């Protein structure tokens, strides 16, 4: 142990880094909790199972093999390199050097895996960068919602990952060469760094400096990256887990039944039905009535808001959306990104800076049709035209690798349009009144309901009914 000023410095940096992150995380938590309450308790084993499969096991990624494979490298690399981060933390605080070396052969294997994964991560990241920045990029990385900040963000993540890996290799290579010059034995096996030693200087001081630079760059880089996450789509590396845990367990076709309407309808059908008293504030005063459906982010359930912070902006949802494929304005990814951006505009921007709100104009190609007076999620960000294009096909829900459900938010906003604003397209209003008057969405008389049996060969109508 060489306890020195470096260790105190490191401790301060680490405390600042984690403290800042905790501060940001609290704000995001508060943002999510402005959503409507929804009971997600119970079914623990089923939920854990899902989390294991979809979040840890990345089962939904494998619908597309190339990105699944590249992503797997970066993901496993991230997990394994974290072990080294633990070592760095301990070394940093207690002034030890390569504290995990007591693991012996396990340490050798660990370091070797680490280096090979590190090199593979660089390869994967280059491939990712190319997929996004070639002309034209992969289709799902286009689209108006992916301009400006989201586009930059995606590239920043890739650059930072390369820098972090480079720092790691600098540290290992310098350390290795230092040991070689001194004729000492270095714990661990370093397949990549041993290839690089030739490129490094032979002065001991220079090597020592390089080793320290690599070490500090790696750990400070990681702490910076940690604090960058809340501003970034890369936040999914944390949020994917709770999001999958709290995802829906019911069949995808099952939409929620609005409970307050159930009471109303029951009371209409049976005058003796007693509608439960509306909830009151803790001081006993009546609460403002909650609107039907969702106009703004706080009308959505907290799970919908959790969704928004888990989105990786990968666009798998949009690329399978039949409306989007055929050129309509709807993009489920945009609905999710709008939700997050609106939360940060209306409530806490959890970030040190607010990049998510930068370049909004570019995202909304249809800015002219956005209603700026109504500065809410609906109309201020999402236009009715987008919402009405949805076929409720659930393809987006099926495609999302982190179990986000854009459809739920779409339906909630449609409910607001219909129930609060009576703003459905005219043809739908015709359909509604047909159902109301004829019991069918088409304008047919209920008395014709049995006409299909007219020319049935089997028997006359009576036989069929009886």
């Amino acid at each position, binding site marked *: 142990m060489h306890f020195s000023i470096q260790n105190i410095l490191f401790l301060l940096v680490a405390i600042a880094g984690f403290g800042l992150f905790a501060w940001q995380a609290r704000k995001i938590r508060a943002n999510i909790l402005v959503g409507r309450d929804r009971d997600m308790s119970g079914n623990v084993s089923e939920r854990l199972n899902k989390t294991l499969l979809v979040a840890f096991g990345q089962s939904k990624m494998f619908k597309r093999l190339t990105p699944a494979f590249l992503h797997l490298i970066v993901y496993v690399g991230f997990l394994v390199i974290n072990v080294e981060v633990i070592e760095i933390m301990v070394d940093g605080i207690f002034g030890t050097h390569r504290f995990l070396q007591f693991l012996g052969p396990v340490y050798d294997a660990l370091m070797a895996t680490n280096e090979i994964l590190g090199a593979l991560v660089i390869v994967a990241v280059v491939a990712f960068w190319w997929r996004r920045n070639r002309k034209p990029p992969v*289709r799902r990385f286009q689209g108006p919602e992916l301009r400006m900040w989201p586009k930059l963000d995606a590239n920043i993540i890739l650059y930072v990952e390369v820098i972090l890996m480079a720092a790691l290799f600098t540290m290992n290579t310098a350390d290795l060469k230092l040991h070689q010059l001194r004729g000492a034995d270095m714990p661990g096996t370093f397949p990549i760094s041993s290839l690089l030693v030739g490129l490094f200087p032979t002065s001991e001081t220079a090597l020592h400096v390089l080793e320290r630079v690599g070490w500090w760059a790696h750990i400070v880089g990681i702490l910076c990256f940690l604090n960058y996450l809340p501003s970034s789509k890369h936040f999914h590396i944390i949020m994917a887990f709770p999001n999958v845990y709290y995802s829906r367990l019911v069949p995808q076709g099952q939409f929620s039944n609005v409970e307050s309407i159930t009471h109303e*309808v029951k009371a209409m059908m049976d005058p003796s039905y007693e509608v439960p008293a509306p909830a009151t504030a803790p001081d006993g005063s009546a609460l403002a009535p909650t609107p039907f459906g969702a106009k703004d982010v706080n009308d959505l359930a907290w799970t919908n808001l959790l969704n928004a912070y888990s989105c990786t902006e990968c666009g798998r949802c949009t690329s399978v959306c039949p409306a989007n494929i055929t050129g309509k304005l709807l993009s489920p990814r945009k609905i999710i990104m709008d939700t997050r951006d609106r939360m940060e505009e209306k409530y806490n921007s959890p970030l040190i800076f607010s990049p998510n709100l930068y370049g909004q104009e570019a995202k909304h190609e249809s800015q002219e049709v956005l209603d700026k007076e109504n500065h809410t999620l609906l109309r201020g960000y999402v236009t009715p035209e987008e919402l009405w294009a949805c*076929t409720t096909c659930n393809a987006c829900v099926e495609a999302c690798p982190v179990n986000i459900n854009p459809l739920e938010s779409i339906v909630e906003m449609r409910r607001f349009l219909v129930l609060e604003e009576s703003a*459905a397209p005219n043809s739908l209003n015709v359909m509604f009144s047909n159902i109301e008057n004829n*019991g*069918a969405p088409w304008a047919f008389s209920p008395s014709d309901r049995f006409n299909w049996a007219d020319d049935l060969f089997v028997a006359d109508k009576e036989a069929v009914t009886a």
Partner: protein
Amino acid sequence: MADLAAQGETPEILFWVGCAGAFDDRYKRVTRAFVRILEHVGVKYAVLGMEESCTGDPAKRAGNEFLFQMQAMQNITTLNGYGIKKVVTACPHCFNTIKNEYPALGGEYEVIHHSTFLQQLINDGRVKIEGGESYKGRRITFHDSCYLGRSNNIYEAPRAVLEALDADLVEMKRSKANGLCCGAGGAQMWKEPEPGKKDVNIERTEEALATLDGNAAALDNLYGVESGNAGATPAPKANAQSSIIAVGCPFCMTMMSDGVKNKERENNVQVFDLAELVASAEGLNA
């Protein structure tokens, strides 16, 4: 149903016809085909007739929760009044709504889609698929309905029915969980599509036709086809015998038929419901 109840009897199943099955001229043929199958196997069934009303599905998907619940409660009152336990329907939208959304409102039934029901009849040997039209060697592709497939995970039953026909079953690249919507769900059936490049049913029909024709070039031009699990492109078919797009949903039926007409392929591509295929294979055509 009222007549049956008057005799103090309850049916084995209630056949929920649905609005399309009752009013749409094309889908009425499916309703009749299914009834012929029921008669043929001698299942004791009943229909509600004029007492049936829209399940409320289109209202709910469009956001009109109030109208949906009015419809739901009314239908639940009718069904419970007759003591119905088991409901069979040919419409995936009715199926999904009654199965998944009615229970919370007091309507608990065993709900079966006709594809599952037909599969059971075939498995039990009650329907033998012989004596009628033969589908041997004809090319058939099945279009998954969103409300049957992704919504309720029913992918195998319709395929099992088609396999029993001994036809040449080919899969579209976007099938099962990756299937592409026909464009009619979510109340789109009752409104004009929003402006875009093309209508959803055209995109889907192009895919179905290219699959049936074995036209690899056309398939490559479609957007959004998943790379990883894409089925092999079938070889082009020289045989002039007409191909079939099989569906299990009234809306898909309308959308795919319109698409085929739009592409002017009615002369050699037909759209049939599973019940129609089974009925004609069984020689039950009137």
